[in-house]
């Protein structure tokens, strides 16, 4: 069940430190799951919050802040990813997993899924992150990324099929 919050503009001043504490996991995780590089993701996440600080006066409410942060995190992550494309590519197997808390479920499978997500093309990769990390529905993803709804649904369908096939080839499908 997703929660959508529509608010009247906030009467009180927004607390930057509070917003950062509330949303740092979201921003870092969008960047990390997209870029699959711990250091770059930190840098992107820092940039996003510095940008929030500069634009705090324009933020209308806590819900607006959440929407704004997610959107900027998506944009900055994609931009950073494009910059990396111009540099020598690093093999996925060379990219170490960060020392973060293990996600629930099969850790091996989780690690493989994160690596496979990172091999997807730019748009489907971010679509998958917004769907399965942020739990946005296809319509919300379409608005966030400014791409047609049909394109979002098509990316979701194809990415799931591709992941299933790759997992099966590695003997990691559902038993």
């Amino acid at each position, binding site marked *: *069940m997703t*929660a959508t919050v529509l608010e009247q503009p906030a009467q009180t001043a927004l607390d930057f430190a509070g917003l950062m504490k509330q949303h740092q996991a979201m921003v870092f995780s969008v960047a990390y799951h997209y870029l699959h590089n711990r250091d770059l993701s930190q840098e992107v996440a820092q940039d996003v919050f510095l940008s929030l600080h500069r634009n705090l006066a324009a933020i209308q409410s806590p819900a607006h802040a959440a929407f704004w942060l997610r959107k900027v995190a998506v944009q900055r992550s994609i931009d950073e990813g494009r910059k990396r494309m111009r540099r020598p590519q690093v093999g996925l197997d060379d990219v170490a997993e960060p020392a973060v808390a293990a996600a629930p479920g099969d850790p091996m499978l989780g690690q493989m899924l994160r690596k496979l997500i990172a091999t997807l093309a730019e748009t489907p990769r971010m679509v998958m992150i917004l769907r399965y990390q942020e739990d946005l529905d296809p319509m919300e993803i379409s608005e966030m990324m400014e791409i047609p709804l049909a394109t979002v649904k098509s990316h979701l369908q194809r990415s799931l099929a591709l992941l299933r096939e790759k997992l099966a080839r590695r003997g990691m499908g559902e038993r």
Partner: protein
Amino acid sequence: MKLGLIAICCGASATALFAQQVKFDLDRLAAKASDTVDVSLPGPLLQLGAKFLDPNKPDEAAVRKLVAGLEGIYVRHFEFKEDGAWTAADLDAIRSQLKAPEWQRLVGWKGEGGENAEVYLRLEGGKMTGVAILDTEPREFTAVNIVGTVDLDALAQLGGHYGVPRLRNDDSQKKPKNDSTSKKK
């Protein structure tokens, strides 16, 4: 089916005009439901949403017309995996509010096994200022409060647009059954 949840925080000044007329204290049901729809759209948000309706789409055009006289719409709809999730007390908590003199029951129907449907109108100075709908089935509980004046026929027609069979006069004529179980001598 995954359904959305929406919550509204209203400024104190707006509350008086667009306030929900019937209080839905149904958190207990929300905790048990497998699917929940929780929509609260007071006046300003109702009108904001209406601005984005496409007049070229028949259903959205119909809703646009309906919204014109409204000041708010509040819906709680729950679906459960098992019978017995809601009780008469949940219904009575809402019904008791509809006993106030400004509310009049327009129509009511009670079926077997917890099926129940009621429509109430709120009248002030002879003018309609609200509608309340209660509809329950063994595994469903729906409460609706529409604040303002609404064309009930047009609203019911909308129900037909969405795949719920629209009420037609010939629906009442039932064809005789072929009794396939009767044995021939």
